[in-house]
């Protein structure tokens, strides 16, 4: 038996709702709140049941409108590259600071998306981020933590 992707997603949502409901029933509430008409677990319990009912209906009811996606035409390679770069960016932003990490992220993204005009890639990464940081930090006085710029004395 072949299960359609929509029904598969609904099945995942059903599992999520069951887990959510289980966690909702286990929320610790204060002893005096235990039998109150409404406590911290009431709303999540309603939501858990709503999720279970809706996803069950989606799984059970026949599907007349099906969404077909041709996976052969999807560019998995580029998207994996971009997600990996984003994850690396998130991992290093606190360590090497906003300026360097963001500039490198932009530069690498341009590269992996097929851009090869090095000059433009450079301008739209390092000077662009510097100008953006100046707008935020210098003009709008919005603090941006950057240990590297602090170390070289550019930021206070």
């Amino acid at each position: 038996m072949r299960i359609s992707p929509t029904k598969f997603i609904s099945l995942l949502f059903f599992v999520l709702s069951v887990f959510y409901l289980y966690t909702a029933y286990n929320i610790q509430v204060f002893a005096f709140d235990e039998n109150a008409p409404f406590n911290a677990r009431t709303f999540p319990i309603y939501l858990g049941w709503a999720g279970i009912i809706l996803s069950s209906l989606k799984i059970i009811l026949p599907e007349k409108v099906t969404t077909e996606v041709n996976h052969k035409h999807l560019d998995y390679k580029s998207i994996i590259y971009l997600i990996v770069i984003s994850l690396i960016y998130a991992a290093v932003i606190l360590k090497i600071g906003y300026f360097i990490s963001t500039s490198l992220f932009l530069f690498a993204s341009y590269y992996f998306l097929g851009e090869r005009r090095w000059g433009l890639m450079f301008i739209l990464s390092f000077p662009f981020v510097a100008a953006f940081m100046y707008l935020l930090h210098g003009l709008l006085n919005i603090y941006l933590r950057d240990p590297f710029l602090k170390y070289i004395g550019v930021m206070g």
Partner: protein
Amino acid sequence: MIEGILIGLSTALSLTNILMVMVGCFAGTIIGMLPGLGPMTAIALMIPITYGFDPSTGLILMAGVYYGAVFGGSTSSILLNAPGIPGTVATAFDGYPMAQQGKAGKALAIAAYSSFAGGTISAIFLLVAAPSLSKVSLAFRSPDYFALMILGLTAISAFSSKGQFLKAMMMVVLGLMLATVGQDSLSDITRFTFNNMNLTDGISFVLIVMATFAMSEALTIIFRGKDPNRAAKQISLTELGSIKVNKEETIKMAKTIPRSSILGFLIGVLPGAGATIASFLAYGMERNYVNEEEKQKFGKGSVHGLSAPETANNAACSGSFVPLLTLGIPGSGTTAVMLGALLGFGIQPGPRLYQTNPEIFWSVIMSMYIGMVVLLILNLPLIPYIARILAVPRNYLIPLILFFSVTGIYLMSFNNFDIFLMIGIAVVATFLRLYDFPMPPLILAFVLGGLMEETLRRSLLISDGSPNFLWDRPITLIILLITITIVCWQIFSTFRKKS
């Protein structure tokens, strides 16, 4: 009242104050366009600057910033599908497709005209009916709010589902589930945090909206390997930025604006998520008003679909000043910051403000209107240049969208957990979008989740746990009956299609 209006007008039209409105509109537009920085942040940033001014000038500057930031938010919604504030999410439904078709300038112009018209009509309402409307604001109780939110969520599921109502409702539940992460507002008990300190404060709106709209849009574009802005790039820059609106489009706007203004203003008067509910409901209402042919255009760049939420959004912004100025109750985060600023100036908003400081009461109302006029005059000539963003090649535009999304999150929390979470949600959202699971219901549910739980809690506590609160009051009952009608209509139309 006429005397008051004249006092307000003379204060607002002084050279210094006009200059302040202009500076405020310009700064607000720039700040509003930046990710994660909405009107609330923009006004908060202005507070220290205004301390040296007299109260009227300070408030006039803030009114300019407010409207500028709302317009700036609409700009990023239309051009990049990256709404920075909840009130402009509905603008992206038709504004973004219109921009992709090479009508970016036109989309921005329609948004500007609609905002202006909505603002004008609501400013008139504000002038005429502000004191008496405060009673409406107080007439709404928790059960009515709860029912109104249920209606808002059902309506958005109905119009964004494209015939797949169950999928949209599942997204509503998912949005509400995400909203419950973090501390419970009353008991401070942490829920669904799995002992992770980063989740204690909950998930931020900017994170959810950037992940499900901006970032997932960027990932979808790469995934499909097609440039959605191809149409925009094939035409000349002059045509792309053209702000000309033809006669047919003007007629469409003229039909949409009055009804959306009234709806927006009335919902804005109610304390709560005014502009957000107003824009979504106006979009849904407009879709029901238009004929079948126009209905098919919704979500694909409809003029009605763009004009309605923009009008309602701005009208609600003016409406939200009613409870602030007449009752001293801020109806939204932005007006709460405004309340703080007023208190900083030594002004206590409330029923007596009208008598004790009439020049402030009227000058704020007049300056809000002048702010809108200035905004239109300042921004219309800039639209052709702003619209050129869409002519940027895909290889540059996608990383820049990702950059703005990540920066928006980083500016709010300064930790990388939120960035990881955003990437995760964006990947899930990309797959959900691929299989036609709509994102707007998820966003609205997430925005309303906290307020919905609070009103349900109050209603259940008042009725001692009984569900009677749903039909005890006529307002609640009427709203619920409308909701039931929408659900029944969806079920009926699904079966009709199948048969």
